[in-house]
């Protein structure tokens, strides 16, 4: 089974060659099988582009498509998806919409997926991309967010009418686990500093426990500096001087806030890929998990985040060469302003961007198919 697989990212070339000892689970005849969950909004169209691109580049990956209908009350569909991911080990997904006007018994499908598969680490790498206009430059932050507990425990009750209690759970086991993951990743990537984000001055027991676990783990990594910052100060620092941050680790809700702030700083939700890692499974999606309902099926969505997420997936499967080939093509296209989609200030359509990426791949690599 794959433990903490190498994550390529930009400049992953130097980490090539480091492979896990046992082969990934669903590899038949040299081809990997990956679960694909289209989701809602812009998910289906962007994931179709991923399939198109993979076919064109002759990537040895077959997709097993599992649809999850967000409007259905029964949890069978999401359970089927979970079973498929258990079988294949890896998934690529779009965001499944949650209608928050439905009764509380109808839980968020995305959340159910994450907790069932125990995908405890959400990793997001935010970096300033060439060609994209932003207010801040030279941002390079890795955000590691605890993905299963905290405020997202979905434990709520109404004891007295008009008074609702929502429980935020922090456990020692999960806090140690995520801190261990953060430091290991920091070391692998040659990062200097890990910052824990918390609100322990107010939530003394809960966030206090999280902070203490981080400190304990930090003691075992003397080569990496460790400090901590309160979440409101963190957001203030992020909008004024984001260059000071290196690796950040935090509980679930603060992770939500900080990752969205950072995604906004580097250019928006259409550019940043995200990955959810567990002990045995990995699910890849866009970092900010937006459904993009208002721009669905209009051919204007930015495919960059989804395509980069698929590259992360290829790295995870060990197909590092394909990953860097596609990634190079994506960045080349991104540096051309006339091929920017609306969200980053351009006029190009999704298909124009994807076509351009395919042309780039054709120019640089030998591995393309004649038929699309």
């Amino acid at each position, binding site marked *: 089974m794959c433990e903490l697989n190498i994550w390529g990212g930009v400049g992953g070339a130097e980490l090539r060659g480091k492979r896990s000892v046992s082969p990934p689970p669903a590899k038949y005849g040299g081809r990997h099988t990956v679960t694909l969950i289209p989701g809602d909004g812009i998910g289906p169209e962007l994931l179709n582009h991923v399939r198109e691109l993979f076919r064109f580049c002759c990537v040895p990956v077959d997709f097993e498509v599992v649809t999850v209908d967000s409007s259905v009350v029964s949890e069978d569909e999401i359970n089927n998806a979970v079973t498929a991911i258990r079988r294949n080990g890896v998934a690529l997904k779009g965001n499944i919409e949650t209608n928050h006007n439905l*009764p509380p018994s109808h839980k968020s499908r995305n959340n159910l997926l994450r907790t069932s598969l125990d995908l405890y680490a959400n990793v997001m790498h935010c970096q300033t991309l060439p060609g994209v206009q932003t207010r801040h430059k030279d941002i390079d932050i890795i955000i590691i967010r605890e993905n299963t507990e905290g405020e997202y425990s979905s434990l*709520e009750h109404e004891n007295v009418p008009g008074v609702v209690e929502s429980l935020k759970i922090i456990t020692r086991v999960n806090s140690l686990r995520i801190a261990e993951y953060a430091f290991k990743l920091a070391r692998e990537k040659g990062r200097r500093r890990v910052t824990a984000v918390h609100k322990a001055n107010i939530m003394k027991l809960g966030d206090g426990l999280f902070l203490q676990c981080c400190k304990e783990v930090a003691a075992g990594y003397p080569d990496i500096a460790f400090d901590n910052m309160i979440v409101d100060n963190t*957001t203030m620092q992020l909008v004024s001087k984001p260059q000071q941050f290196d690796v950040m680790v935090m509980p679930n809700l*603060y992770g*939500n806030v900080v990752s*969205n702030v950072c995604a*906004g*700083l580097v250019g928006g939700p259409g550019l940043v890929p995200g990955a959810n890692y567990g002990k045995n499974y990995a699910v890849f999606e866009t970092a900010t998990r937006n459904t993009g309902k208002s721009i669905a099926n209009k051919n204007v969505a930015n495919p960059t985040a989804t395509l980069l997420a698929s590259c992360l997936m290829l790295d995870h499967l060990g197909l590092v060469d394909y990953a860097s080939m596609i990634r190079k093509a994506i960045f080349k296209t991104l540096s051309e302003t006339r091929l920017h989609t609306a969200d980053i200030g351009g006029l190009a359509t999704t298909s124009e961007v994807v076509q351009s990426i395919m042309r780039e791949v054709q120019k640089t690599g030998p591995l393309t198919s004649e038929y699309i």
Partner: protein
Amino acid sequence: MAGNAWRSTVSRVMGAVKSQTQPRTFSRGMQTVTIIPGDGIGPEISSAVIKIFEAAKVPIQWEERNVTAIKGPGGKWMIPPEAKESMDKSKIGLKGPLKTPIAAGHPSMNLLLRKTFDLYANVRPCVSIEGYKTPYTDVDLVTIRENTEGEYSGIEHVIVDGVVQSIKLITEDASRRIAEYAFEYARNNQRASVTAVHKANIMRMSDGLFLRKCREVAENFKDVKFTEMYLDTVCLNMVQDPTKFDVLVMPNLYGDILSDLCAGLIGGLGVTPSGNIGANGVAIFESVHGTAPDIAGKDMANPTALLLSAVMMLRHMGLHGHAKKIETACFDTIRDKKVLTKDLGGNSKCSEFTAEICRRVQDME
């Protein structure tokens, strides 16, 4: 008409929330305001504000009070009775930064004040300051944060060794109260829309309740546009285009994070005003930065945050003319860039900065 009856009920319940307030204590046309200088740079910036108000001939007489915690009968920590009496009489307060001792045995002073006067709404208007450059220009929004419950209820338990639960409390009454305040504020300050910030997709019942109350209150304020947005979407859009937002209302934790995020957009806590509205018409305006013990007593402090909070206070009291005068003088001084304190990029003293603003105010007469 039903509309008018509703309005007078709201006024009775919420006290002097509207800007056209009748000043409470009259003594020869002067209104009394309790001033709490605070610690560290507190006394310097408080005297700077008093000086500027004198130069602008504002009809206010100050009553200075100290709020160091004392143990009352029964062993409960409370603020000194003179301070409480003064606030109850004057209803308006201006507060400098208070230091929170780490192991003093008593809760933070801010928490004590909040509990004593039931300060349920924290209001922070964030407006870009011309002359103090940040990557964000044209920011003009207001964050209204519920200040009594939510994630900061302080209820935590250790279930078993290694498992901690923190309780986030959302009640109907508090949610309705803050929503009503937000809409009243929007109406009184000619703001076009109110956005409720929540995470009801995950915290279905708690944020769901908050959202429901906001929707109900919105029905009575049809002249103000009401929208709702997820917390993560707000964060994402705020750092890309803050001009999209107007008035934001939210529960405690999101409010804490977002209000500091917005303060960061305009230049930090050293230039951000803040006001706390309580039940029974009490309102305390404060600067939210720290006590800065390293520059205390050296005439280096920047009084802008406390000054802008005092301007907010004047508007709350209905003294719009004086408020505009002082605010303009302050912004003009910063825009001119000739006399600025160290944190704003200059090297003038606090007294020089204050004198410059006083001069401008007097020139405007």
